[in-house]
């Protein structure tokens, strides 16, 4: 087994942890924590693939774009959390449906 296969196997385990967190939790914060973990695994896979193809420059440029998107997603998610908490006093994803206009 080459080293990239081992790295991607470990990345898969990290990604599984994030998906599991998103699957079992009802808290918005934990959903975002799970999303962050999945995103970290995706970033590791991207840089690892860039190193494999000897193209780290492009991989880094793509990763910077990805980090910008991640920040926006987290900021929007936390804004929804704060709004929902102000309205209902809870951070439960099942109460987000009451935010519809």
């Amino acid at each position, binding site marked *: 087994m080459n080293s990239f296969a081992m790295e991607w196997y470990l990345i898969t385990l990290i990604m599984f942890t994030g998906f599991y967190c998103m699957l079992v939790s009802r808290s918005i*914060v934990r959903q975002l924590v799970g999303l962050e973990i999945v995103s970290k695994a995706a970033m590791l896979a991207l840089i690892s693939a860039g190193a494999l193809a000897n193209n780290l*420059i492009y991989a880094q440029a793509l990763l910077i774009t990805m980090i910008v998107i991640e920040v926006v997603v987290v900021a929007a998610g936390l804004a929804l959390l704060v709004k929902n908490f102000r309205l209902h006093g809870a951070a439960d994803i099942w109460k987000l449906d009451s935010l519809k206009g």
Partner: protein
Amino acid sequence: MNDYRLILFLLAALFSVWAVMARRLLTSAIMLALVSVTVSLIFFDYGAPWAGVFELSVCAGLITVLFVGAVSLIRAADEQNPENRSRFHALPLVLAAFAIASWYYLPAFFAELSAWARPGTGGGTIGLALWDMRRPDLLGQILMLAAGVFVIKSVFPRRNEK
């Protein structure tokens, strides 16, 4: 894979499991920051310093501050109505089962996948890639940031005092 990188990967996996299993949300946010720090160290080890710097400053810094701010707001309510912890406690068992089951086919698949890579030239600088060759990406990033600002604006509208 060298030993240093293997240890960092294992630490990232350990911190991510800890972030999921932590009972307090603040601990979870701090563990997430440690995952980011570990991931940025892995980037430095790969020879990707720009990715490491962005990961360290934005993900381990800015996003952690956002998380800690949000958690400090909802902490009291979360401690009054805690989630059912049994599914979180099952994570090590489920992860171990997944790791053992996938060990038999995933590394072989990944080894085959890595053989498909077509090596690039590896030249250029990050400035050339970001400002010249991938310039349209910058437009997308600016639009994405504008979309984020618009989301915040629409979630917290200004109320008329009537």
